[in-house]
């Protein structure tokens, strides 16, 4: 902050922006017809924001999420993540970006069934080339943070849905990525558990993580400080709001 105040340069201001999307276009071809899933979308997200992406199915919100997650490449436009244009990176470079810059949380948890909680959380570090001892320590820390330190040796099928999603959150945290992408993270959970998971995400956001969330439930979107609404492949609303207050301690008791 001090240096920014001294220099006041454009680059320093730009570095405050984590995600910069310009005229993003994604078209899918099926036979002769061409489907424009994203039709020139532009927005930027600053560090520390909690953004909910909403819209009906087919509106382009999932496509946007895939772009942001570097799981898919845009057909046109620009995507600058943390100061780097990632729209034209190679497959391997994209894998590296996903590993270092992003943490994913999915609706279906997407844990590996054969690995216990600790190994699931440590998996991104395997691909980052961290040695085994450090992996175990960092994975244990991440699990502690989501309140699952007593269940590190449990396999996903020995955990409840809420607990599995906590493991997934720990996995998103372990690489210390600045951006957490959550795709309908509460879609498979009951209301009470959903609130706990959202409390956890809000807590992480309060600690400085940028969180981008896709949801179609207004209750869930209410936790965000900003809502991007999509329709027919276009961004139709960009709304800032006062986030819903978190009930209780999100990282607290197990379900």
């Amino acid at each position: 902050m001090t240096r920014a105040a001294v220099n006041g340069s454009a680059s320093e201001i730009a570095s405050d922006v984590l995600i910069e999307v310009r005229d993003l276009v994604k078209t899918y071809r099926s036979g002769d017809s061409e489907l424009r899933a994203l039709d020139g979308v532009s927005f930027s997200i600053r560090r520390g924001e909690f953004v909910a992406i909403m819209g009906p199915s087919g509106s382009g919100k999932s496509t946007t999420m895939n772009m942001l997650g570097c799981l898919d490449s845009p057909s046109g436009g620009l995507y600058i993540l943390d100061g780097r244009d990632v729209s034209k990176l190679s497959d391997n470079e994209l894998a590296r970006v996903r590993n270092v810059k992003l943490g994913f949380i999915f609706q279906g948890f997407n844990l590996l069934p054969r690995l216990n909680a600790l190994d699931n959380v440590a998996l991104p570090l395997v691909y980052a080339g961290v040695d085994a001892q450090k992996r175990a320590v960092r994975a244990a820390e991440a699990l502690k943070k989501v309140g699952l330190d007593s269940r590190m040796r449990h396999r996903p099928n020995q955990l409840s849905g809420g607990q599995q999603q906590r493991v997934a959150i720990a996995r998103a945290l372990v690489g210390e990525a600045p951006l957490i992408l959550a795709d309908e993270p509460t879609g498979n959970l009951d209301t009470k558990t959903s609130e706990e998971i959202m409390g956890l995400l809000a807590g992480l956001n309060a600690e400085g993580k940028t969180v981008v969330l896709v949801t179609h439930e207004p209750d869930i979107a209410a936790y965000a400080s900003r809502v991007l609404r999509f329709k027919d492949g276009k961004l139709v609303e960009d709304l800032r709001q006062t986030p819903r207050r978190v009930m209780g301690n999100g990282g607290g008791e197990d379900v």
Partner: protein
Amino acid sequence: MFEVLRTAVSSLWANKTRSMLTMLGVVIGVGAVIAMVAVGNGASRQMEGVISSMGANMIVLRPGSQNLGGVRQGAGSGATLTLSDIRAIEEECWSIKNVAPQVNTSAQLVFENRNWPSQVIGTTPGFFDIREFQAQKGRLLDGEDERSAAKTAVIGETVARELFGTANPLGRSIRIRNIPFEVVGVLAPKGQSAMGQDQDDTVIVPVTTAQRRLSRSALADAVNSAFIQAKDASMMDSAMTEIRALLRQRHRLSSDREDDFDLRNLTQMLDTMAQAARVMSLLLAAVASISLLVGGIGIMNIMLVSVTERTREIGIRMAIGARRGDIRVQFLLEAMLLSLIGGCAGILLGAGASLAVTKFLQWPTSVSPAAVALAAGFSCFVGVFFGFYPAWKASLLHPIDALRFE
């Protein structure tokens, strides 16, 4: 790398039955290659053993076929070869080293209250040199025995065992066709011949004695066959030419008549047989390799199934930072592990099968290190080759499609 290995082991372990069955293909393939090569090797080793036990540069001379009123009999049926012929060969052919005529007859041997059927060979002292027979007890026959047509005999170990048991046969008298022979020596054992005959089940007497007292041939001087040894390998052809010329002259055969004797290069014959054994072992190995190939295809099949089944896992791994190369290595390693473990088990199986063949079928086998190395290498290659396509297919999955896969 260790992490990838651990992942591979755990995913193979998760599908134990399937992994075992997949491996079984390679186990059987490798086992078959090793066992077949071992059997083939054993056979050609045995042939080589026979060749060296026969002695080198050997020519076999036998009387020609007899012509009975236009009906030709088989080779050796005639009585056209005489001891004088053999003596002439010994004296006049300079390419040869040694000649041993044989007067063969089979007879019931009698010692006290025991008897045993055996083949009786009447021959000259040169026989022991040519066939590399040695005495384990007593002495061999010598020129004096031959000249005097002595009633002396050297017996093989089998005969000694059957007639005398553990007693010392030396100096004892056995009866061959009611004629008493003194046992002067016992031959050192030689085991089976190329044709599976027991070479120790034999009695050797002087050729002169055999002709006079044992032979039932119409021609008193006839011999049944002769082993002739050339001076060295390069003289085999000239030795055969000399013998042929000499015998044709002695038998007064005009140029338009066929030989009335039969000359064969025995070493060459055995070489041919050894060659055949080698070709056979190659053939067996080739057939066995096909089963290894089938095993490899089994691996590919299962790995393809595995890739499809684990599409979601691949998607998750990619989403959290796995590169395409990481995915490829993971699946490749699993395939290699399958084939490698299968290969090791196959080596044990093959070695075990070879031992069993030797034990129960009495076939000689020899598990060669080269075959083991070849099979191990080939099974590794099978793993890489047949694992590569599924691994490559897995790595080409698009992360989103893989994640959405149900």
